[in-house]
C-alpha cells in the first residue's frame, strides 16, 4: 500500500472513531442528549469502547486469513487507543455523573457491585496497554515481552463484555451481538493458526 492511500485511510479511521465523541459534544452543547443525558453518555462511550476493542481484535484474524491484508496492522494501535479514549470518558462519566465525585459511593460500588468491579477491571487491564503503546515502549520492552503483556487485551475485552451483561436486566439480550463477535474473533486465532501450520507443514513435506 502506498503512502497516500495509507494517510487517507488513517484519516478516515480517525474521523470514524472520533465521530461518536463529536456527536456527544455537539449534543451536549445543543442540549439534545435526550431525556436522560447521563445514561446517553454512559451507554454511548461504553458501547464504543467495546466496539473499538473488538475491531482491534479483528486485525490479527483478518491478517491470518490472507497475507494481502497484512497492512491492517497499521490500524490496530489506533483502534486500541480509541477504545482506551472512550473507556476513559466512560469512567469519568461514572465518577462525575453517577458517583457525583463522592468517594464513599465509589468504595461501596467497587466492593459490592459486580458489574462495576468487572468494568473497573477491564479499565485497569487497558491502562498498561495504553501506557506501552508507543514505538519507544515496544523497543524498550522488546517485541516478545511487549506481545506477552498485550495479551491482556483479551481479558480486558472479556471483562468489558461481562460488565455489559451484568449491567442490563436479566433477559435483555442487547450485548449478544458484541459477545458473539468477540467469541468468533477469539476462537478464530487458534483455528486459523492451526490451519496455517498444517499448510506450511504440507508445503515443507512436499
Amino acid at each position, binding site marked *: 500500500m502506498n503512502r497516500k492511500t495509507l494517510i487517507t485511510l488513517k484519516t478516515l479511521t480517525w474521523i470514524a472513531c472520533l465521530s461518536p465523541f463529536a456527536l456527544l459534544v455537539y449534543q*451536549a452543547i445543543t*442540549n439534545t*442528549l*435526550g*431525556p*436522560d*443525558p*447521563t*445514561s446517553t453518555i454512559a451507554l454511548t462511550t461504553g458501547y464504543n469502547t467495546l466496539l473499538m476493542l473488538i475491531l482491534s481484535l479483528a486485525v490479527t484474524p483478518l491478517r491470518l486469513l490472507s497475507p494481502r491484508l497484512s497492512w491492517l496492522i497499521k490500524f490496530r494501535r489506533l483502534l486500541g487507543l480509541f477504545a482506551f479514549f472512550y473507556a476513559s470518558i466512560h469512567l469519568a462519566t461514572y465518577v*462525575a*455523573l453517577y458517583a*457525583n465525585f463522592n468517594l464513599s*459511593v465509589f468504595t*461501596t*460500588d467497587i466492593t*459490592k*457491585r*459486580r*458489574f462495576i468491579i468487572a468494568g473497573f477491571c477491564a479499565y485497569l487491564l487497558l491502562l498498561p496497554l495504553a501506557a506501552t503503546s508507543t514505538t519507544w515502549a515496544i523497543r524498550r520492552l522488546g517485541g516478545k515481552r511487549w506481545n506477552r503483556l498485550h495479551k491482556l487485551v483479551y481479558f480486558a475485552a472479556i471483562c468489558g463484555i461481562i460488565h455489559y451483561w*451484568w*449491567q442490563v*436486566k*436479566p*433477559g*435483555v*439480550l*442487547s450485548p449478544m451481538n458484541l459477545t458473539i463477535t468477540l467469541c468468533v474473533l477469539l476462537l478464530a486465532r487458534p483455528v486459523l493458526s492451526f490451519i496455517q501450520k498444517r499448510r506450511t507443514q504440507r508445503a515443507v513435506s512436499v
Partner: protein
Amino acid sequence: MLIRKPSDIPSSEITSPESYTQFLSRRRFLRNAIAGGAAAGAAIAGADRLADVFAPRIHALADDTKLQTVKSPLTTTGEQLTSFQDITHYNNYYEFGVQKDQPAENAGVLPTRPWTVKVDGKVKQPKTFDIEALLKLRPLEDRVYRHRCVEAWSMVIPWVGYSLSEFINQCDPLPSAKFVQFLSYYDKHVEKWTSESNIDWPYTEGLRMDEAMHPLTLLTFGLYGQVLPNQDGAPVRIVVPWKYGFKSAKSIVTVRFLDKMPPTTWNEQNPNEYGFYSNVNPNHDHPRWSQKTERRIGLPLFQQRRTTLMFNGYGDQVASLYNGMNLNKNY
C-alpha cells in the same frame, strides 16, 4: 361549548401546550404518512379523508385525545413536571423493544380499540368491562405523581385516572381474595419485539389487596389531560407511585383476584433483584446499583442527581401498610 374560568382549568392542561402540539403533529404525520402511501399526490383534504379509511384507529385517537378531568386532593404538589416529550419518548415497554426510544417508535401498532378488561379469580362472578364503560365509571382526576424507576431514574407525571379501589369495588371480590394480579396485553404477532428478550410473556404484576385498595393506587387512562399514548400503556394501566415503575403494569387486559401471591414478571426473571413488594427504598440497594439517589429525567447534566425518598416521598400515606414488616427482607 363550556367556557371555563382559568382557575377551573387543571394545571396539567396549561403546562405543556407545545408538547401537546408535538403529540398532535406526530399523529398527523402518521396519518398523512399512511394516507400518502395509499394515494401519493392526493390533496391534503383528500389525504385526510383517505386516512379515515386506511387508519380509522389513529384518526379516532387524534380527534379524541382530550379527557374531561377534575382536580384531586391526592395530587403531588411542588414538583416541576417532566415534559410530555420525555414522558412519551423515554419508556420501558419491552414488548415494543428494550431501548428507551423504541416504544415511541413501535407502540403505534397496539390496537387500543376495541378493548375489554376481564375480571376473574376470587370474585362473586367473572365480568368483562369495556374500556368505554371504565372511562365513565368515575370522574377522571388529574393526579401528579413522582415516578421512580428501579433503574434509578425518575420523572414527575400528571396522570389521569381514578383510584383503583373504585374499580375493585365494582368487581365484587370474595373475602378470600388477598392479592390482585394484572396481566398486560400480549400478542407476539403485534408485539414482535418480545422475541428480542428472554422473558416469559405476557407481562404480569400484582399487589396485595390493601395496596391495591389504597387511594393513591391509580387506574390510569391518560396523562397531561389526554388519553395515554400507546407507549405509556394505553388504553388503561396501573400506577402505584410509592413502588418502582415496573410494578405499574401497562395495557391491562385481565385483573385477577387470588388467595395467594401471584407470580410477577421481574421477580420471576431474578428474585434477588426484584422483590414482590418493590417499594421505593433508598436503604435497600439493588444488588447491582445503589438506590440512594436517582436521576431526574429532563434536567441538565449536572442537575440530574437527587436523593431518593423512602416510599418515593409517599411514606406519610403508605408506610402504615408495612408496619411490622422487615423491608430489607420484603424488598
